[in-house]
């Protein structure tokens, strides 16, 4: 599974939007959406929200976790804890990226949040790298990591797999004393 697939999966998440048109219920495989009524917020899948937004048929309702306060709080917690903190959504980074790209004007303090999300992302990646390093150095058989988001798992999977393989190969070659 690569990043594109994660992106694809993330678009199945629900987000509330405020439509500016009227339309009866739409029946989808995953469940029905609608009815759409002007100004009444409702939950639609992300892919539909993106499509509606791009055709100027809705506004996004900024999710609770994408406000300046909550992102700041997340960053603070992430900084304080040595381990990973739980994210409000498994696709938090990809979703925030998508929302910012599509509907920056619907997110209050969007630019600041973008910077904070970047900080959060960097912080978590740094943690991830250091924990991989620790794992390799300690030579233990496994390491338990919690609260990783999909995209992070996806990002390290290939690298971790190959590097562990190399380590194993090298260990096989080095004769034991």
């Amino acid at each position, binding site marked *: 599974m690569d990043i594109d697939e994660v992106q694809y999966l993330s678009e199945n998440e629900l987000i509330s939007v*405020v439509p*500016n*048109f*009227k339309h*009866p*219920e739409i029946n989808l495989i995953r469940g*029905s959406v*609608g*009815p759409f*009524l*002007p*100004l*009444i*917020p*409702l939950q639609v899948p992300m892919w539909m929200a993106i499509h509606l937004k791009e055709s*100027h*048929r809705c*506004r996004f*309702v900024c999710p609770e976790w994408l406000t300046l306060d909550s992102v700041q709080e997340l960053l603070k917690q992430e900084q304080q804890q040595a381990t990973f903190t739980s994210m409000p959504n498994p696709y938090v980074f990809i979703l925030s990226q998508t929302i910012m790209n599509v509907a920056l*004007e*619907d997110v*209050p303090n969007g630019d600041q949040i973008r910077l904070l999300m970047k900080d959060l992302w960097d912080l978590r990646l740094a943690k991830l790298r250091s924990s991989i390093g620790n794992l390799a150095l300690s030579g233990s058989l496994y390491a338990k990591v919690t609260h990783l988001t999909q995209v992070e798992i996806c990002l390290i999977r290939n690298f971790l797999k190959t590097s562990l393989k190399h380590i194993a190969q090298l260990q096989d070659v080095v004769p034991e004393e």
Partner: protein
Amino acid sequence: MLSVVSAHSIAGLTDVCYTKDGSHFLTCGQDGDIHVFDTKTDQIEHIRCADQCFCLAVHEYHIFVGTNRNELEVRSYPHGDSLPSLAHFTQPVSALGLSNSLLFIGTKDFKVLMMNLNDDSNKFKYFDGHQAPILSLNVYEEKRWIATSCCDGSVRIFNIDKQNLIKQLNIIHKSNDIETASSLVKIDWDKNDQTLAIPVKNTVHFYETDKWTRKKTYENDSMDQIINLISFSLCGTLFIVSYVNGQISIVNRLTFDICMIYSSKDAVCSLAWNPTQTNRFTCSTMAGEYAHVDISEYISKPTSTLKEENEVENMTTMSEDNESKSESLLDDDEVIKEDKEIIPKWFERASSMINETKTVELQESFQSTSTSKYLESRYLLWNNIGAITCYNEQIQIAFHDVSYHHSITIDNKTDKYDLGDLSLSAILLASSQTGKLLCILYQSWDSNMRQWTINTENNDKIENINLSEDFISIGTSQRLIRLFSLSGIQQRIIRLQGPIISMSSYQNQLWIIHHSTQGLPKEQAISYVYLDIENDSYLTGSLPLTPKTKLIWIGFSDSGKCFYLEKSGYLSMLRRTKGNQFEPSLICNLKQEAEKNNLANYWLLGVNDFDGKFLLRVIELRGQSFPDLVPWPLVSIVSLPLSLYEINTEKSQLESDYLKIKLFNSSTDNEEYLNNERQCLIKMFALSCKLNREYRAFEICQLMDSTALQLAIKYSTKSGKLTLAQKIIDELVDQKKDEEQTEKEIKYSSSEIIPPSLIASSSLSSTISFSSTFEEIKSKRAKVETTNAPFNNPFRKKKLINIPNETSTNDEFSQWKPSINTTRLSSTNKTTVQTDVHNEITTENEDNSLNAKRKIDETENINEETTKNKRNRLQQFACNR
């Protein structure tokens, strides 16, 4: 009463000053204009200066104005040509003082500076130490002193030449800005007595200038209002005190004897003495008005001669007792006390009576859902169809459903529209300032001329506008309601009893709220006029308010009931009684409910009340008092309980649900409605049974119909309340059956002549005609199936309390089905009476019967439909077509 003349269109700080020769006086106000008045010929010259003017001073050929552009603007006098400005600041100039050629400037950015106008070097001399905006300043040139009052709570006295602080008095009330200051603290020097007079709360302190100790205090016991300004007359015998409630007192300088009291609606904020006629002064009020006052009669009063003597005495004692200050102070106090006794008792009483009869401040007119007109960017309207916003001198009309119409932007620079309304066929904009009315028929088939305008005449100001289905109504300052057709045909002019507050319409019914005659002390009295244009009916009544509050929203609910909201949060409804009158009833308190949800308030947009549901469309306000334009606010739909006592208990909540069903039903023969009512009653019954309150349970049973009664009997027998069950069987079941039977018979018998729903056509019973017109509308509208949560039946989601019976409930209902359509509710007696009445009526006007029959067919069709599929109530809310 002060005979005021309106000069500036926007209320707020207004300044006034005289030219040195007394030939002209100038006023400036918050509308940014300077008016130059000729005192002899009454000629007026207008100078457009800025958006707001705060203070002005005039010197030979120049006018100095402190404006919102944060600079000291200079205009030529008398023509007002713009000259290069003298000084720039970071905040507006708030106080100006002129003494010969020295100009003193006090600003909101804590600065006081002086410049010499004869000196070309443009050098400023600063007086430092202020820690807040400057309220006022006053120069004593002979002594080379300047006194300043400042929002940081201090009055400071500086030496002009050395620019050093002589004395600082921390006596006035602290505030953070001039607008929020409780008093304007306009100080004045008494040059005869060498004192500095400072208004402190409701007193004036007089400080002598040698050691800066308090010499005496003026206080009027009957007044607890704060004093805004004090000013000594040029002749030196009187001083003027102005209170924030608009009263001004003319007081003898020495005896503190009140010569005259004038009252006005708004506080006097500035006062200037006529330099040539020293007995006259001109003052300006916070409403942008000015008034001339002549004080000559008070100077030549016999009592004042008495005081002249006193004054001489006073002076002599002063000079004698110079060494022992404290004694002289005491003496002075005594003198004052003695003098106070001279004042006749009746006069004091009279003055206090003047205070009491002061008129109540009547609230201004407003358009429902528009935000404060003092905001730079604001909503003019938000209704079901769209929102009209005003920002950057542009009007934007945004439709909620963009597929209905794209948004429209109109330039607002010249016309200054500040009122707006929107319907499915037209946009209406009006300006209270320019008196222009614009109507855009955006859905008209006539594509050449889609808009028309009209101007008001004879100083008539537009206060309020409204768009109904077929006509436009305009409320004006002359207490008139002018009706136009949509295309602009002038139709009717209706007179109102008092100034209009607001109006609202539903289809072709117009509801006008206006001030009526004097209410209880310190409260306003509000009345309404209810017009039905189609049926030509005119109803009036008074609108009850909670104490000391004002209206902030009025409007019709989606089903056409009148609702009004007070600032205290109380939402009330006018309920139609059977006698076609309005009963005002309290529904809920929005503010309290909002506070329960940790919100500041709800901004009400509309009420949806179909079939026993009571949903409010609101914008949630957190911290702010009005919704912002950016980001575009989210509409939420809330269901609030009625404001019953102990609403947190289950009992009160069920009662609230039941009352809602009773209050907000439009058609009583709807099966869903009956089911809801039964469920609610059964729940209440079960709860009372659980609590062992059998008497209450029995009372609830009296409200039930026979279907529900069966369930109640079952429930009570199962839960072991046999006496109760027996009592219900004995007393209620037969009675109910009889009632229903008689009702059925009446129905059949009446249907032979005229079916009961023909009642709908008769214009006399408007309650039912409401519902019938509604049905028509509903039938026209597309039906959408919803599973969306906010509009679902609240009872659907909740589980029935009496679960053991749940399966049997359905059986019972299906068994009883045949009777359902014909059964009426508990109030059967009343309905029979009503139908009887209508039998008589309908025989009289049989002309209607054709029309009516068509209506009946429709309504019956709908009844059938409703039994087949669950109808969605949302169509009314959604903008449809």
